[in-house]
């Protein structure tokens, strides 16, 4: 595939056609902040924190670094005055949604945004518990995409339009599609899914999911949700002897 030259903040590099700005910047060691990006799933381009200034000839606009494909000679400014200005507004909007969320507070501090929000938090406007509960969720969609693209369960999805958008399980109830693997919780940048292991049970509060845990045959520690064991047995044909031994004990059991 052909290569295209790109200059990012004054440093030039040649990258393969269709490389994203974010990947090109990484190669140059230039940091661009991201929130919704996860390199294991398809780029989504919604948080807009990675907006950078793009110049192609006379054409000039702000583009999200995570999804913008480089197809011809391009100059990128990751920290121009305009980028900073728009980024600060976006951080302020995120603060209005999630005023107590550390990830957002850190971003605010880094980019010089006052952390007392200019805008009233949502849950104060709506005076609803739901908004307070979900105020830490920044709707980056990493959980939804990992659940669909990697786990293959599609157990959760976005619901609602505009500011009523949220991530839910179907009908906001417990559902069998969720295997309680916890991948959603591991990728969540704001830890807002409520994933807790209580010994013999695992809970994912946001998805109303509770499942029993299986104890390791060797050491007796609870480590595997029953729903996931079912997938191992039925879909992957792994024998119980294998899947019911925890990863820590496997080395000594299967020599």
């Amino acid at each position, binding site marked *: 595939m052909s290569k295209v030259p790109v200059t990012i903040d004054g440093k030039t590099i040649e990258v393969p056609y269709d490389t994203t700005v974010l990947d090109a910047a990484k190669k140059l060691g230039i940091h661009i902040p991201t929130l919704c990006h996860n390199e294991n799933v398809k780029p989504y381009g*919604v948080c807009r924190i990675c907006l950078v200034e793009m110049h192609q000839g006379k054409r000039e606009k*702000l583009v999200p670094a995570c999804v913008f494909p480089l197809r011809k000679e391009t100059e990128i400014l990751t920290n121009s005055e305009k980028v900073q200005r*728009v980024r600060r507004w976006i951080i302020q*909007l995120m603060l209005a949604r999630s005023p107590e969320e550390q990830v957002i507070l850190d971003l605010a501090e880094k980019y010089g945004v006052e952390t007392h929000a*200019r805008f009233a938090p949502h849950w104060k406007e709506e005076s609803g518990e739901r908004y307070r509960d979900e105020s830490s969720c920044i709707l980056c969609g990493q959980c939804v995409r990992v659940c669909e693209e990697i786990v293959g369960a599609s157990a959760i999805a976005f619901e609602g*339009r*505009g*500011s009523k958008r949220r991530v839910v399980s179907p009908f906001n109830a417990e559902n069998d599609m969720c295997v309680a693997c916890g991948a959603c919780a591991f990728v969540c940048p704001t830890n807002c899914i409520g994933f807790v292991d209580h010994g013999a049970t695992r809970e994912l509060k946001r998805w109303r999911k509770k499942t029993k845990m299986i104890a390791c045959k060797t050491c007796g520690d609870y480590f595997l949700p029953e729903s996931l064991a079912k997938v191992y047995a039925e879909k992957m044909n792994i024998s119980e002897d294998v899947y019911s031994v925890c990863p820590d004990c496997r080395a000594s059991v299967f020599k």
Partner: protein
Amino acid sequence: MAEKLTSRQMLLDLAEELAGKRKQVKQTITLCAGTGCRASSCMDVHQALVEGVKKRSWGDKVEIRTSGCHGLCELGPLMVVQPGNVFYKGVKPEDADAVLDETVGKEEKVEKLLYEDSVSGDKIVHWHDIPFYKKQKRLVFGANGEINPNIIEDYLAVGGYQALAKALGDMQPDEIVEQVKISGLRGRGGGGFSTGIKWESCKKAKGDVKYILCNADEGDPGAFMDRSILEGNPHVVIEGMIIAALAIGGTDGYVYVRNEYPLAVKNLAIALDQARDYGLLGENILGSGFNFEIKINRGGGAFVCGESTALMASIEGRPGEPRAKFVHTVEKGLWDKPTNLNNVETYANVPWIVTNGGDEYAKIGTEGSKGTKIFSLVGKVHNSGLIEVPMGITLREIVYDIGGGIPGGKKFKAVQTGGPAGGCLPEDKLDLPVDFDNLWEAGTIMGSGGLIVMDEDNCMVDVAKYFTKFLMDESCGKCTPCREGLRQLYNILVDISEGRGKEGDIEVLEGLSEAIETGSICGLGQAAPIPLKSTIRYFRDEYEAHIKDKKCPAKVCKELITYKITDNCNGCGLCPRVCPADAITGAKKELHVIDQSKCIKCGACYEACKFDAISKG
């Protein structure tokens, strides 16, 4: 079932035969049966006319036709009697006998049904003399008033599908694209992108399957041009789509139409079946070996589904949310295949261009915007309805000549162009020639063609608040700036309109607007701050009056107005009776008083008072 047409000659012969038959009918009454006239019971008038004809045994003498929208919806039901081009408005079923006896029988006019000019008060007989129609150029819309949308033979009789036959017989795909490029046609859905260039890019894109989509998800409140074309002349859109498919190499077509347009869906479905029966759609079109099929996809009513990528996601069966389109949809669109998406009105222009040539089309309009544009003219004007005008006409001509000016002797304040995400232009922009580029420079957009006229009773802060709320509610919520930003814009506008505005609010609105328009994924967010920005640009003093003086100059924002009873009050006792909040007290024949703590500012007393004794301010 009709005999399939397998050659261009067969089509031409049939057209000639049908046109001849139409000419044999000496007298006709064509009744508008668009949605507007249907709402004013035109079908009852139709029934009365049909019965009247039967009663008189005039079956051979006069033909009663129904057609699509005539445009002057405000005065419906409308009809045109031929010969003589006699235009009647506001026809009721009980008028049927008079129309038949006087006009059909004696060729005399029914005085009370004639159009009366809003300025001179003169009665006007012929439809083309009415100022509303006089300045129009009905290129696309003309046939609407002549043909019955459910009868394909009507369309064939006025030359329908002959552009397709010409394209199939005489033109190479490249030539079709070239003619559309020469015509200068730009997308009528709002984007204003060159249709010819779009077709060319899609034609060049590699793929064995290519989709030809028609965007009929007309979501702008108060806009109904696409609906009226689909309802009144669906075949012109179908013909345009088939020509596009022929030019681009399209294999399958979809019309994405709102389910809230039942008559459009119905008439389109009937038209597709009829076109198939005649061999004008489907396999081996007109015996040429070219195949193309069109399906209808009904939309669920989300405004954002009018955005190209959201529309495609919706057809695919996914939630209607936009995505980044740095890789254009002409290359990777519906199901990742090359896809050409045009709006209803864009396709409706295509047969004319093919028939008359791109050069001829390019003679109409301005340097950068060619042809005509259909607008839905609504708001504070006498003649609201649908108008088709050449690009370059001034806003003044539209509002005053075609629209008949502002009713009630009120003063013009602004005209909003381009739908909910369009900007408001003040009086000193009235002489602006309307085209894509002029509107953009003036801080607004062509959009899909909404035109809302506002007078001195409209508060521009309130207008900005209204449209911002509409867009906030319709935002899909996928990206941060649109989802969170519009909500904050709206909150600030609510504060300003309720007297909580503070110094610096305008600057926050402007800063946030920049973040939303430069940071949002799709056109909805990118254009959403336009109503706000244009009202700040042209009516900043109104914002300042709200913020600094806590006054609403147009007396619209409830929290900023007070109703008081003046010395004119003679204690008639009417206002306490109409007040729903029991806020007015006073003894009989004595000055009454409004308790401000109870007053809900509904204005009922103000409207009811016969002695001009209640002040609002």
